[in-house]
C-alpha cells in the first residue's frame, strides 16, 4: 500500500528533513508516525501525497510511483487518499455538507449521487445533524470530523492524518481517535502523525518513530526481531 525505500528529502535551505527512511505499510494497517516537532513526520506525509518532491529513493503509494509522479497525475493520487490536518483546512464559507461535497465535485462525480454519499459519510462521523452548519459554528472536534468526512467521501484506501488531534481537547481527541480506529476497522489503512504518546499507548498499532528525519524505531521490526530471537 505504502512503500518507502531509502528515501531522502532535502530542502534547499533547511538541510535534510528525511534521511534514508525505509518502511512498508500494508493494506488496512494502522500506523503511528511519532517523534518530536521537526522530526520529519509531516514531511513524510507530504511525500506520500506528493505535497513535496522526493529528493532520492523510492516512494510508492496506492499503486503510484510518487517519486516520478507528474503534475497531471497528482490529483488522481490524491483522490485515492484521504488527508486530514491539524488545522482542519475547511473552506470557511461553505457548510459542512458543501465542504464534503466539494471533494466529490472535483472528481467529476455525478450530481445525482453526491448528496446521498455526503450524508452517508456525515452520518458515519456523527455530524448528520450539523450538515448545514458553517465551520465557524462548529467546535474543533466537529470541524475535524467534517474534515475526516471529506477525506472519506471518495472511499480512499489510505487515510493520512497529520496531527489530527493537535488542536483538540481531551474529549474531542478521544472521539476523533475512535473515529479513525473505526475507519481503520472498515479496511482503510490509516497513517497518523502525532506526538501524543498517551494516544499511541492506547492502541496496539504499529509505531514508526522519527528523530531528526531518520527512522529510529519501527515496532513491527522490533516484534519480528523478538520473534526471531525467542526459542
Amino acid at each position, binding site marked *: 500500500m505504502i512503500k518507502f525505500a531509502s528515501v531522502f528529502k532535502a530542502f534547499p535551505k533547511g538541510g535534510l528533513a528525511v534521511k534514508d527512511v525505509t518502511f512498508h505499510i500494508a493494506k488496512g494497517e494502522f500506523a503511528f508516525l511519532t517523534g518530536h516537532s521537526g522530526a520529519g513526520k509531516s514531511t513524510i506525509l507530504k511525500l506520500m501525497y506528493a505535497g513535496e518532491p522526493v529528493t532520492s529513493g523510492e516512494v510508492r503509494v496506492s499503486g503510484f510511483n510518487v517519486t516520478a509522479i507528474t503534475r497531471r497525475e497528482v490529483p488522481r493520487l*490524491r*483522490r485515492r487518499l484521504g488527508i486530514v490536518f491539524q488545522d482542519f483546512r475547511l473552506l470557511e464559507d461553505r457548510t459542512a455538507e458543501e465542504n464534503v461535497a466539494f471533494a466529490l465535485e*472535483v472528481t467529476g462525480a455525478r450530481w445525482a449521487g453526491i448528496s446521498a454519499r455526503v450524508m452517508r459519510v456525515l452520518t458515519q462521523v456523527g455530524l448528520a445533524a450539523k450538515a448545514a452548519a458553517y465551520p465557524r459554528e462548529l467546535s474543533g472536534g466537529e470541524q475535524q470530523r467534517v474534515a475526516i468526512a471529506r477525506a472519506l467521501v471518495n472511499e480512499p484506501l489510505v487515510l493520512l492524518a497529520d496531527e489530527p488531534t493537535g488542536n483538540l481537547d481531551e474529549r474531542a481527541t478521544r472521539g476523533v481517535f475512535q473515529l479513525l480506529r473505526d475507519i481503520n476497522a472498515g479496511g482503510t489503512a490509516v497513517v497518523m502523525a502525532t506526538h501524543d504518546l498517551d494516544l499511541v499507548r492506547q492502541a496496539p498499532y504499529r509505531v514508526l518513530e522519527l528523530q531528526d528525519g531518520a527512522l529510529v524505531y519501527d515496532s513491527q521490526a522490533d516484534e519480528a526481531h523478538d520473534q526471531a530471537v525467542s526459542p
Partner: protein
Amino acid sequence: MRLVVREAALAFRRAPLLSALSVTTIAFSLFVVTLFGLVAVNLQQGLRAVAERVEVVAYLLPGTPVETVTLALKDIEAFPEVQSADFVSEDQALARARAELVEFRDVLQELERNPLPASIEVRLKPHYRDAASVDAVAERLRGFGFVDDVRFGRDWVEKLDRLRQLAGAVGLGVGAAFAAVAIIIIGTTIRMAVLHRSREIAIMRLVGATDGFVRRPFLLEGALKGLAGGLCAMALCYGAYAAINRWLLHVAFLSRTQALAVVGFGTLIGLIGSAASVGRHLRHV
C-alpha cells in the same frame, strides 16, 4: 460547466467588496484609455476633414478642345490615387469667381473678356492625401500637352503630413502607455483577488482538484470582471462625451466596433490576468 459558473458566482458573492473594487479599477483604467481613444478619434476626424481639401488643379491652355479634355478626364480618373476629376470651363470658373469673390464682383462684371482659364480639379482618395502622392499626380498632369500649369498648396500639404505623423506618433506612444498602465493595474487587481483565495486553491488541490478545475472559475470570474469593467468604462465615456457635446464643443463618439473593442479588451485583460495569476499561484501549491 455548471460547477464553473457556480464557483465563479460564489466568488462574487463571497467577496462583494473586493469584486466591486476590481470592477471599478478595471472600469476607471479602461475609462482613461477610452477617453484618450475618443480624443484620438476626434483628432483623426478633424485631420481627415482638413485632408479632404487636398486638391490638385491643372489649368488648361486656352482653346483646348472639349473632346480632348473629356478623354483626358477618363485617363486621370483611372490614376490609382484619384478619387474624382472634374472639368471646370472658363465660364464656370468666372461664375464661381463672381459668386465667391463678392468684393471683386464689380470688376468681374465689367470684364469684356473672361481672363480665367479652364481647369481640371483633381481630388485624391483618402489614403493618397499626402505630399508624395500629390507631387506624383501633379507631375503626371504636367505631362498632358494641354496643361499650362498645375497648382496645389505644397507647403500646406507638407504641414498636414507632418501634423498627421506627429499626431500618429503621439497617439501611439501615449495610447500604448495608457494601455500598459491599464494592463498593469488590472493585472494587479486580479492578482489580489486570486491571492485572497490562495488558501482555498491549496485546499482544492489537496482534495484532488486538477489545475484546470481550479483555474476555470477564476478565468470566468476574471472575464466577467473585465466585461463589467469594460461596460462601465463605456458608460463613463459616453457620459463624458454627452457632457462635452452639450456644454463644450461638438465631438464624435466611438463607432460601435471601437466600443465593442474596448469592452472586448477589458474582457481579454480580465481573462489573461486571471490565467497568469492563477497559473503562477498553482505552480506553488
